[in-house]
């Protein structure tokens, strides 16, 4: 079995190298049969990677501990879902998933566009082949999932914190996002290499970018929820380097999704769009590098390994390649029009882009800071939460405001008179909300109050847009169907508003109290009274569960339990928090028992009350819905593209 997996990966490597070399020669010399052969090699590389993936999945399900990977990440007690999720629980498996998604995406994108963009796909094949060459080389030579040994009776098991339903979905979602960004990058590089820098590459990759961006965004929210319920520190985002690694390409892709509309409408920002596509791709590889190299300390340090230098070399080479390509083709990327007014939709997109990229780069600087200080001063220093929070407020709040202003400004030019009239309702709604909240006591946090006021402004903007659009077309359905991208985008904006309200509420207005409680002793937090009712210990086959039980009285009454699990295999502890969600009040009661003594009943407990935190998870669902609306295939658009090409190239 392992031999078949190893052989399949070697075949993938050979095919990827062939796609790179033969595809490059074919595109350069314009040789049709060789280009088709290289394209077939790319298709086959997906098939051979699928064989390798099937071998690993079969070994996992069959508990074949002669595979080192299976023995290292699973055991016989592990439920089937977690056994399968161990595929991406370890480094080698997750790299195999990267390669599988890359070759799958690449083959599909090339197959779909091979007729309409035949001159361009000839160059896309070697670019995807080059990326696949790197990953298959790492899998064959550095981190193979098919190493074997004499099979032990049982395996080590999966890290307890990964035994969570969110961890079944979170990593594949992120990988679908990370790897998805390779497709627009490959098409952008193909456009530059072929000299065909017209709009076709953008139209061809628009949905790929949107899908990758949606996966990346939703994957991060799944990860945030996992951190909230499983890691047990009371938060959902710690500005951990690996969390940031997923956020950065998402921010770059968000900027690209906006600025690409300026290129489509006005033929501007061509260089900027190329830079953003390259940046998003490089950051996605850098994100994998951060996750897998262990170069910076992180809660994800379970994945430390020695593949880091290989990734670093790849990031450097591909960055130099991208920059050189853009510089080489600068004359082809000149804009044909200029910004006509600072008060126009395209100008609003430009401001939005500057803020997004500034936020992305400040986060990157924060992530790199420990490496920089280690190299320069010989000691590792990290950027703390205040650094990131400061820049989130500095760039995030204006971004929120722009999200409301942008849709109300027309393309090309808007007079101040027209804008004032259009803004009247949203501004009125925002002012009323702000004043009402301040009167209700929400002014204890200025950033929180600003976030709520801006959120009301954005929601009012969306409502105004929907009402006016429906009046003009006569039907909401028709309005959305005619411009899914715009109205799907508005739904996503609504999701971001929910996210902002959730983040502001749960961080700026949360309460937290830590206490040492003896048996029967009570504590009070934000209207809740919690009384220590004792500690129980429950020994099961693979785990000993210790739980402290607290009786709760207040807005909600009942019992809440928290403690820890001590696993036998792997011999690791896992913190188990107690969470009670009150949907009516829109808040969570969150209990963390840090230390408990079963004999005496003494516990050390932290209790948090987090208002509006659940809006963050609801935002995830709204985000998915909005992305689906924007992604929904548009037959009219496809016909337009075909007709355009047919007109130009009879």
């Amino acid at each position, binding site marked *: *079995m392992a*031999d*078949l997996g190893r*052989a*399949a990966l070697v*075949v993938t490597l050979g*095919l990827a190298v*062939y796609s790179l070399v033969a595809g490059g020669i*074919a*595109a350069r010399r*314009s*040789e*049709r*049969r*060789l*280009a*088709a*052969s290289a394209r*077939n*090699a790319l*298709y*086959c590389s997906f*098939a*051979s990677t699928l*064989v390798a993936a099937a071998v690993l999945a079969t070994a996992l399900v069959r508990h074949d501990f002669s595979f080192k990977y299976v023995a290292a990440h699973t055991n016989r007690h592990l439920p089937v879902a977690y056994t399968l999720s161990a595929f991406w629980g370890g480094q080698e498996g997750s790299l195999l998933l990267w390669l599988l998604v890359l070759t799958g995406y690449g083959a599909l994108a090339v197959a779909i566009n091979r007729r309409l963009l*035949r*001159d361009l796909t*000839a160059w896309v094949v070697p670019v995807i082949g080059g990326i696949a060459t790197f990953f298959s080389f790492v899998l064959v030579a550095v981190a193979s999932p098919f190493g074997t040994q004499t099979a032990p009776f049982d395996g080590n098991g999966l890290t307890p914190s990964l035994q969570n339903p969110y961890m079944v979905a979170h990593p594949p979602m992120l990988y679908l996002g990370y790897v998805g960004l390779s497709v627009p990058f490959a098409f952008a590089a193909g456009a530059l290499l*072929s000299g*065909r820098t*017209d*709009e*076709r590459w953008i139209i061809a990759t628009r949905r790929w970018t949107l899908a990758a961006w949606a996966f990346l965004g939703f994957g991060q929210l799944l990860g945030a929820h996992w951190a909230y319920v499983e890691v047990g520190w009371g938060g959902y985002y710690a500005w951990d380097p690996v969390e940031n690694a997923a956020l950065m390409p998402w921010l770059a892709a968000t900027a690209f999704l906006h600025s690409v509309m300026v290129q*489509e*409408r*006005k*033929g501007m920002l061509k260089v900027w769009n190329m830079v953003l596509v390259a940046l998003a791709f490089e950051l996605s590889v850098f994100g994998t590098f951060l996750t897998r190299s262990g170069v910076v300390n992180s809660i994800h340090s379970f994945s430390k390994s020695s593949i880091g230098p290989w990734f670093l070399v790849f990031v450097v080479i591909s960055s130099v390649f991208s920059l050189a390509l853009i510089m080489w083709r600068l004359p082809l990327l000149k804009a044909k029009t200029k910004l006509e007014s600072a008060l126009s939709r395209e100008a609003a997109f430009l401001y939005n882009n500057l803020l997004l990229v500034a936020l992305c780069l400040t986060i990157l600087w924060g992530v790199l800071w420990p490496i920089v200080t280690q190299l320069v001063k010989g000691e590792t220093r990290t950027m703390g939460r205040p650094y990131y929070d400061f820049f989130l407020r500095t760039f995030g709040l204006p971004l929120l405001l722009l999200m409301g202003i942008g849709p*109300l*400004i*027309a*393309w*090309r*030019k*808007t*007079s101040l*008179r*027209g804008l004032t*009239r*259009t803004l009247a309702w949203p501004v009125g709604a925002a002012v009323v909300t702000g004043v009402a909240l301040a009167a209700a006591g929400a002014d204890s946090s200025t950033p929180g109050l600003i976030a709520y006021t801006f959120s009301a402004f954005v929601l009012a903007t969306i409502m105004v*847009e929907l009402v*006016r*659009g429906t*009046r*003009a077309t006569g039907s909401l359905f028709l309005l959305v169907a005619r411009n899914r991208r715009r109205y799907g985008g508005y739904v996503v904006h609504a999701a971001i508003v929910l996210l902002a309200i959730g983040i502001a509420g749960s961080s700026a207005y949360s309460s937290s109290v830590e206490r040492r409680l003896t048996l029967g002793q009570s504590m009070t937090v934000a209207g809740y009274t919690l009384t220590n009712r004792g500690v129980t210990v429950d020994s099961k086959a693979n785990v000993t569960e210790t739980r402290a039980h607290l009786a709760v009285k207040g807005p909600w009454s009942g019992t809440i339990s928290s403690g820890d699990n001590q696993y036998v295999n792997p011999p690791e502890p896992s913190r188990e928090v107690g969470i009670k969600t009150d949907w009516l009040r829109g808040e969570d009661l969150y209990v963390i028992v840090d230390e408990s003594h079963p004999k005496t009943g003494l516990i050390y407990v932290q209790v948090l009350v987090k208002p509006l935190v659940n809006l963050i998870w609801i935002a995830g669902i709204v985000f998915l819905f909005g992305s689906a609306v924007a992604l929904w295939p548009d037959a009219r658009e496809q016909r*337009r593209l075909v007709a*355009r*090409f047919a*007109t*130009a*190239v009879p």
Partner: protein
Amino acid sequence: MIFVGLLLAAAVVVLVALPFLREPVADDDRLDAPSEAEGRRLTLVEERDRALAALKELEFDHRTGKVDDADYRELVGPLRQAAAVALRALDTPQE
């Protein structure tokens, strides 16, 4: 297992070589890419579509009240002109 592996490898070799097996000798082996003239025409078609889409969007923004009458009158002229220029250029025979 070795047999399965060999079978897969053979299938891969055949698929990769297929374009050459189908056409051992090709009359025209050049990639079917747009010529320079077709490339220019493609750019013109893009400009036409861009101008027409901008006009459509302006009309919609005017109807929804996002663009007032004065702004509409100021913007619609240049857009119509851009669309007309692109349409005329497309109708002109090119080398």
